[in-house]
């Protein structure tokens, strides 16, 4: 066996050049870790070449050089040898005086002839010769390492292992970027992986890979078809989801990639046909349906011929304001359970008093039901005269004292949606003297009695939900405000200005446009023009219709505003305000009252009665870091800052000298451990509910993580803001609830700020949800306060003691913003509520054009 091997080698090897130095150290290390040459895992193997000799012997050798070896033709080798045998005598001669003659016998034995190749075997026994020179004529086949990698790449592509296939290509590229066939393999891998990603539904990645291939080789067979088909699917999907701008953007991209492809034409036609279909549908409709259809047609394809004038005309007939809101009021009725209710109720219902001041009591404010209020018996007897001329939206009858009396009594019914526990304690009786006069007797003289008359008043002839059955299926909401509700759904509220409402506009807003309002230029063909030069041109149309559209999950308020889907958004996340203010055609306004973010605690859960646990939860929150890094994304300011209590800085209820709440995780852990000890070492598990508001979504998991680190198991769940807040106010049980609160009048709002179910029916036992008995007692004392100094003193005491009692965990206070497109004129830079002065707002028709079309 041994002799046979030796003979074989002897026939192949001409000269032994001795043992080469051993392999390089690094190579040795690599060789130790890497699979042996010839194994299946070429990708991780040490580089090697495979030589097959003419006698069939296969040699694994170190990669030869040069790579690839120059071409060798045995037939031409004879002539070359003959030429080399007749070596020409150099011009200077072979003998030169003074120069030693070259001794051919001393020539370098390592020198290779042109028909030789030097091989270094990969494996061999100790002291075995590993280096050989091999005649090219004895080499039957050479398999280079690069070729083996590319071959492996093909196999990996066939098995959909694209990452490893790319690694093979990458390795070839690192060894020899110009290796023959590398580019083709890369293209192949890109195409195969891109195609597979598209099949698997990962369109973004698939298209990215195919686009890369397009950049490398535009004429790759089938590439344009594949890309176009994929883009076509994406466009169809966007269309089905009504994401028209996105669909058009994709189409635009496709047009840039393959402008003449048939799918481009098909998709374009699809857009136009969809838009045209909407326009066709408008032939059968009128009014708001027609306007909505035309607007949608233009939203689908803004450049649709001849539609813009139709839209402008329809818009002029029914100027519509589309508002993107965090949440819509659900259910809608004559009550205020959430911020959404508060926003809409002023449009739908008129209160008894527009505000709690003397002017309103004397009936000097137009938009209120009371013509005058007389107070006697130390404020315990109120006589209200009702102003004539207001009618219910169903046209049945005018608003009268009966409606007011019924509503005030309904608020004492625990089963009515408008139940208010404080009002029950306060009200003695209501006597309706006649259609225009009623008398209210109170049990005691409250501080700010007028504040109880600011809420919406529902019709007496309707159910407790404020609706009147007109047919077996139809129960419209009946209201007496300047607008009426025409549609409500889970994500939409549509209001229409009442034709029969002739209330004069109130205040200075009617006469002078609000600060920050700008002139608008309507689209061409519009009949409504804004005066530019102060001339007598007709004014832009006032708003006749309001559509509140709830932003879907993942939809950003800023995004829909920028796209032009809506003209007004009720809330701008604080980290987007700066960028939005700098955006052309967008204006940002500020609510006059900041919002305070707090975590409400339910004291009905005995765990949360533990003072140690509440302190632990508070200490676990590093407010400054969370606020600056995740909510604001810039340093805190005088307006956006960490809170130290339930009341915002700057209001009279904010007690001075209260130490800021700090974050100490180690102290939090200690306190939570102490609380667990109080609870017999039972694990503490709490459920945190939070509203679907952008900045809350950004922070809530960080909060939960902090509490988990402190030793409290937290489960989070997201709810629509209105549903969360109305549920809490109804007194339902919870553990922890993230609340975003606005405080208008601290004395009146303190209870609801601290105890969400403060006005809930007694069955809910919501008062017990105040986790600090001391604060609850102070709140109840405050409720009975009759004079301003006492009330203010108590509210200050509540703020001061809340720092240590922690009935809620304060987080931070933020200035709240809203924003609008400049097609809408009227909203002020600062407002108490979103629709403040809507009577004077004007809006021009406008179509959101694609930027490439605009240019």
């Amino acid at each position: 066996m041994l002799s046979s091997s030796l003979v074989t080698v002897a026939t192949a090897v001409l000269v032994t050049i001795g043992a080469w130095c051993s392999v390089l150290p690094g190579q040795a290390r690599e060789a130790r870790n890497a699979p042996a040459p010839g194994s299946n895992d070429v990708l991780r193997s040490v580089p090697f070449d495979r030589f097959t000799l003419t006698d069939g012997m296969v040699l694994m050798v170190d990669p030869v050089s040069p790579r690839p070896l120059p071409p060798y033709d045995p037939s031409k080798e004879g002539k070359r040898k003959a030429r080399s045998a007749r070596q020409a005598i150099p011009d200077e001669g072979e003998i030169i005086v003074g120069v030693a003659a070259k001794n051919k016998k001393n020539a370098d034995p390592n020198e290779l002839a042109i028909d030789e190749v030097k091989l270094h075997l990969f494996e061999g026994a100790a002291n075995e010769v590993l280096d050989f020179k091999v005649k090219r004529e004895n080499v039957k086949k050479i398999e280079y390492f690069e070729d083996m990698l590319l071959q492996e790449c093909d196999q990996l592509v066939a098995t959909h292992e694209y990452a490893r296939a790319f690694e093979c290509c990458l390795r070839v590229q690192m060894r020899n970027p110009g290796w023959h066939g590398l580019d083709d393999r890369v293209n192949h891998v890109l195409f195969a992986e891109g195609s597979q990603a598209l099949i698997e539904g990962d369109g973004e990645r698939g298209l990215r890979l195919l686009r890369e291939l397009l950049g490398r080789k535009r004429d790759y067979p089938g590439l344009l078809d594949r890309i176009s088909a994929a883009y076509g699917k994406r466009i169809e999907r966007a269309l089905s989801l009504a994401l028209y701008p996105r669909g058009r953007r994709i189409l635009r991209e496709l047009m840039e990639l393959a402008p003449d492809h048939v799918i481009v034409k098909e998709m374009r036609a699809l857009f136009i046909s969809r838009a045209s279909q909407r326009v066709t549908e408008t032939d059968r409709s009128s009014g708001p349906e027609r306007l909505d259809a035309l607007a949608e047609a233009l939203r689908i394809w803004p450049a649709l011929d001849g539609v813009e004038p139709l839209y402008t005309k329809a818009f002029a007939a029914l100027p519509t304001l589309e508002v993107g809101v965090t949440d819509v009021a659900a259910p809608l009725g004559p009550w205020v359970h959430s911020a959404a209710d508060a926003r809409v109720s002023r449009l739908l219902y008129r209160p008894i008093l527009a505000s709690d001041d003397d002017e309103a009591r004397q009936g000097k404010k137009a938009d209120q039901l009371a013509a005058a209020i007389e107070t006697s018996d130390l404020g315990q007897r109120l006589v209200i005269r009702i102003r004539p001329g207001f009618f219910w939206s169903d046209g049945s009858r005018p608003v009268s004292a009966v409606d007011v009396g019924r509503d005030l009594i309904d608020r004492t019914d625990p089963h009515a949606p408008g139940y208010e526990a404080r009002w029950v304690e306060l009200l003695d009786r209501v006597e309706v003297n006649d259609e225009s006069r009623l008398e209210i007797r109170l049990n005691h003289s409250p501080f700010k009695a007028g504040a109880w008359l600011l809420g919406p008043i529902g019709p007496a002839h309707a159910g407790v939900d404020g609706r009147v059955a007109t047919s077996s299926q139809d129960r419209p909401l009946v209201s007496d405000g300047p607008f009426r509700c025409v549609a409500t759904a889970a994500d939409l509220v549509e209001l229409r200005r009442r034709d029969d409402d002739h209330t004069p506009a109130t205040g200075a807003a009617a006469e002078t446009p609000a600060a920050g309002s700008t002139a608008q230029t309507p689209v061409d063909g519009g009949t409504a023009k804004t005066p530019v030069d102060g001339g007598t041109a007709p004014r832009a149309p006032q708003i006749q219709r309001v559509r509140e559209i709830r932003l879907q999950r993942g939809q950003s308020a800023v995004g829909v505003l920028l796209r032009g889907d809506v003209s007004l958004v009720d809330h701008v996340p604080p980290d987007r305000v700066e960028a939005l203010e700098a955006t052309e055609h967008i204006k940002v306004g500020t609510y006059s009252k900041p919002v305070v973010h707090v975590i409400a605690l339910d004291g009905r859960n005995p765990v949360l009665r533990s003072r140690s646990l509440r302190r632990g939860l508070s200490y676990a929150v590093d407010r400054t870091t969370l606020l600056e890094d995740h909510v604001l994304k810039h340093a805190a300011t005088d307006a956006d800052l960490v809170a130290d209590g339930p009341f915002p800085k700057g209001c009279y209820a904010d007690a001075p000298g209260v130490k800021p709440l700090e974050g100490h995780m180690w102290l939090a852990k200690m306190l939570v451990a102490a609380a667990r000890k109080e609870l017999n070492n039972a694990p503490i598990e709490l459920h945190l509910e939070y509203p679907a508001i952008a900045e809350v979504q950004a922070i809530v998991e960080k909060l939960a993580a902090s509490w988990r680190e402190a030793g409290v198991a937290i489960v989070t769940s997201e709810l629509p803001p209105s549903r969360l807040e109305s549920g809490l106010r109804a007194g339902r049980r919870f553990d922890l609830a993230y609340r975003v609160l606005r405080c208008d009048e601290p004395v009146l709002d303190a209870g609801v700020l601290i105890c969400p179910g403060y006005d809930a029916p007694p069955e809910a036992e919501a008062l017990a949800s105040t986790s600090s008995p001391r604060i609850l007692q102070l709140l109840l004392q405050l409720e009975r306060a009759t004079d301003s100094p006492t009330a203010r003193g108590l509210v200050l005491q509540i703020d001061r003691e809340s720092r240590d009692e922690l009935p809620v965990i304060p987080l931070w206070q933020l200035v709240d913003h809203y924003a609008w497109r400049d097609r809408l004129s009227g909203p002020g830079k600062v407002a108490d509520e979103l629709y403040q002065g809507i009577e004077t707002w004007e809006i021009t028709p406008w179509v959101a054009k694609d930027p490439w079309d605009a240019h």
Partner: protein
Amino acid sequence: LNPVVRLTVALAVLGAAAVGQVRAYGQETAKEPAQSPPREAIEQRPYHISVHLSCDRSARIDAAGRADLLHDWQILVRRLIGAPWVLSIAPASSPLANLDPEGLEPQAFSSLASFDKVWVVRIARSESEGALAFAGREYDTASRRLGPLQRRTALTMSDAPRALLQFTQDLFNPIAEITGQEGEHAILNVQGAALLPATPAGAVVSKGTVFLPLRVVSLTNGKVQVLRIPYTYLQVESVEGPVARCKIISAMRDPFTKRILRPNSLAALGLKAGSSPIQLRFVTKPNQAPAAGYTVTARLVPDGQPHTLGTTDRSGRILLQPGFADGLVILRLLAGNVEPMVELPMMPGVSFQEKDIAIDPKPLTVALEARIDSLRDEVVDLVALRARLEARMKARLEGENWTGLEEALQEFSKLTPRDTYAQRLTTLKDEASQQQRDLKQAVLTRTAQAQITDLQAMIDRYLDDDTYKAYADALDRANAEVTAKTKATAKKAGGRPAVPKAVGKSGPPARTNLPPNPPPTAPAQPNTTPPRPRPPAPSQPF
């Protein structure tokens, strides 16, 4: 009067009252017990019980089923109760049987004076569980009082006799004479207690049985008035023969006062937890304003753990659902977090008509306690912070990390010193005392004083500076040691003055900012320098 004479008078009065009832329900067909002229002693006397059992239609028990049930139940009574109960079953047509037990009035039982007890039991089908539901009440003819509403369920008909036995045991309440008082204890002579029951379960009185004391007053017109002694209960501590020794549990100072004008005697009626909700209303003195937002807790007598029952609503009311405890409890109304306003003994599920319970709201005390709580929170936080720093100082000392120790000491010195808290606590106390003197009303209540004492103890125990001083001294000694070594080295080298240019790797840095925390009265350190400073003993964990 001699107690024996008084007892005789009381029994005679009770007997006369029972006999003097007007017969209103002539339809009673149950056999009345024979009137034996010489009545035996009370402890020898069994309870003659008239049972009025009705079955609601929903129970689906016909006459035969009722008869079977009563038969089986009577067998169980004989086997387990025995002599103390002498039962008489009224027919199903008894007018009493068809009355709603919840709405019963004592007048309805006026015709049944010959019995000691009358039980009205109604069986219906429980809607929620589909089980047989027993509901009923006991009427005690001697005291003319209705017992609490009792409920029990039986899942199947075969369980009904046993459930009925348990139910009637719940219904049954013994009656006794209060024969004497020894300090905080009352001595009761219980009817039927001398009769030997069939099993221990049939004993009429046992340890833990609760009695409601009654005062039987003879009026001028010859009638007898049975008055309940408010907020007072007797709980049996031991039983010796027919005599039960009971602990008096009362919210009154002298519940068995003898300052009564009319001739009177004391009796007691057993009481068990019932199934009726209790509504209480608290008002504040002197304006009778509702005591809203107060926490009500309960603890079982004698040594149960308090637990929260709820919070008074805006009108000062709280509704206590039955079942929050299975025995006598002490209800406590808390203001703020801890201050007790009033303590009342109460039997759960036993409804009664009480007036508004007036309390002194003690607003100053409550405010004081809130401030003490806040101060205690600060102290607790400081204790934790100091413990953390002490652990750090110990580690650095052991590792001879002098720079780190110096930093930790400086950090420690920046903490609020102990004296500040002590001063704040003293100020709180002084202000409260001043208010107490000025307003002439209690501010420093027992609870507030206990809180102050606890907090003072905490400050004294956990905020001492000994540990800090020890570490500071250790650092000083280490500094001195290094300086001495440097001098010695310099002297050895050439007699030049040793002025180290830089502190060595292991040498401590010069202390630039000595903490002001140690008081000037710190004890002098011994002159002998130990070879290596040792860490002081760790503070006791809080």
